[in-house]
């Protein structure tokens, strides 16, 4: 539920179009058809589009699933500043890129798909959507011992907190194996939870 973010779909569509352009371009160039140089163009354009569209933009509400390894391309795309943020620019860029591929049969499907992606981006732009890069969150260093109160020095069963007078040692491991405190268990204690 909630508002549809058209840019998300446009991004998927543009990425797919890039792949289709590459495939069509390979078929045309390998087959050495007439005007095969359009095929070569199509491969280059396809690669460029895939690289541009690979980093997914951040959703307005909620968390966004990143594509695998997209943070490298995010840095590059971010460098273009307003050109990469603005979806109007992307819409017209895709429209422009799609036109030359339309002259060759092998890539005409790629043209059509990219044109549709361009239309969806235009729709997204009119609704005021923008591409925002997904920034990696700075890792919070866990505060060692910040919220942990003095860990107990004896294994259970323990006397209540008031009776515990001994100062405890640092560390988060409470009991693992042989206890080093004053209490010695007559029977070895093992964790039977499987």
């Amino acid at each position: 539920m909630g508002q549809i973010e058209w840019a998300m779909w446009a991004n998927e569509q543009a990425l797919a179009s890039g792949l289709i352009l590459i495939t069509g371009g390979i078929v045309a160039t390998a087959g050495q058809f007439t005007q095969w140089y359009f095929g070569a163009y199509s491969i280059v354009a396809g690669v460029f589009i895939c690289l541009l569209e690979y980093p997914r933009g951040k959703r307005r509400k909620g968390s966004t699933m990143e594509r695998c390894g997209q943070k490298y391309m995010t840095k590059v795309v971010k460098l273009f500043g307003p050109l990469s943020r603005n979806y109007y620019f992307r819409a017209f860029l895709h429209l422009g890129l799609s036109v030359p591929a339309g002259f060759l049969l092998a890539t005409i499907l790629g043209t059509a798909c990219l044109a549709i992606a361009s239309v969806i981006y235009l729709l997204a732009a009119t609704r005021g959507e923008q591409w925002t890069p997904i920034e990696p969150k700075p890792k919070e260093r866990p505060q060692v011992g910040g919220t942990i109160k003095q860990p107990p020095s004896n294994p259970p069963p323990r006397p209540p907190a008031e009776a515990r007078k001994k100062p405890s040692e640092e560390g988060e491991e409470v009991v693992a194996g042989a206890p080093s405190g004053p209490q010695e268990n007559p029977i070895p204690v093992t964790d039977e939870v499987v």
Partner: protein
Amino acid sequence: MGCWILNESLSVMFVLSWLGVNFYLFIDTFCWYEEEESFFYTRVILGSALAWARASAVCLNFNCMLILIPVSRNLISFIRGSTICCRGPWRRQLDKNLKFHKLVAYGIAVNATLLDSLLTVNLEDPSNRIANPTTELLTTIAGITGLVISLALILIVTSSTEFIRQTSYELFWYTHHIFIIFFISLAIHGAGRMVRGQTPESLLLHNITFCRDHYAEWKAAAQCPVPQFSGKEPSAWKWVLGPVVLYACERVIRFWRFQQEVVITKVISHPSGVLELHMKKRSFAMAPGQYILIQCPAISSLQWHPFTLTSAPEEDFFSVHVRAAGDWTRALCEAFGADGQAPEESRSRPRLAVDGPFGATLTDVFHYPVSMCIAAGIGVTPFAALLKSIWYKCCESQTQPKLNKVYFYWICRDPSAFEWFADLLLSLETRMSEQGKTHLLSYHIFLTGWDENQAIHIALHWDENTDVITGLKQKTFYGRPNWNNEFRQIAYNHPSSSIGVFFCGPKALSKTLRRMCRLHSSADPRGVHFYYNKESF
């Protein structure tokens, strides 16, 4: 153990047989087109691209036929309901219908890519002597419909990625309806009869084996009149007509069910933000463990949300417990006045539509003399229906059922969300003690999350009669259960019974329980045996 191997291997076998049929169709068609006499001259022009293209087209037809069947929800429920063919493991395959739908979709995508590339090669091939392939594409029926089909497929695929499904289900659902255009274009794709082979009459007159080497003498020689060709008639519609009609019926059924009246007989608002709805619908029959899909047109005309049924089949109503955990559920709770505001009489309750029930059932519990039911967290919901049903069968009915002992384990991190379930247990406890059947149900609640204050509170009230958290006679345990001890104790109590184990919760615990069942079942056929029923709800 045997059940598990059987279950997984059935899925694998199913996928392998689907792949096998695909390969068989591909290779069979390929060989036919490579060797068939009537296409001899076509092969001279097109080479083996003809056979490749036709083979992938046949695979496409096959997959397009299959793709609509797994999403006919009511058909699948109907098959599951009929006991003729569907027992146990087979029934579980039906629960994987969406996975199969996606698998077939991948098959269509692969075949479509192959076919598109081959046809491009075909059209561009200089020996085919097409002057302007692009014009050829855009002026023939086959070309235009082919482009439309490919575009429709790509749009469906890009809007069905997991990301889009999660962020905007409506976009996914609306765009998926482009399949209507897909199927119409597929049906008329062959209308241009572009694949041309020699007619049978011409084959009789024109001797290929002789004439192929004597092209210069064709018109002159008597054995070689000019061959006549005719286009192959469209065949895609023959493949997809059945499933399309079936799916159309499915949508009609869904619409009819949507129109059916659902009467809301009771609305209970629990303090933990849980809304309980009691409903009635004509000819509604359920079994414990099943779920229904609920739609509230006032909130969203498109969304159907699944809820496990929490009432027993013996009751004259069916109920669900809805927790306000997202946009839709919160809106539903608000609409029914669960947010604290007293519902005015003038404010009419929103209309609900119910589809179902779907899903696997827990009725196998009654086939064992002793059953262990283990629920973790939200997995407790199907057991609400089950426990009520056990109560009805064992205490209220005249006949003595086979089941005479139920062990119920509930492992929970935050019980406050399920205090309605604790109430249910309390009422069951009192009713059973009234009837003198307290030995029937033995339940154990395990709390796995607590803070220091709670711990102190619990420690202070340890010696009281009833449990401080739930108010039940049986005390709540803290921490996770020691399954080894539990299973050992139960095996000791019931030395020669078969014990059914039913679980609803996370996979990790499921693995543990399966292992326990294996460990504690005795090798002696007359000894105790634990049967793990792997049901996913």
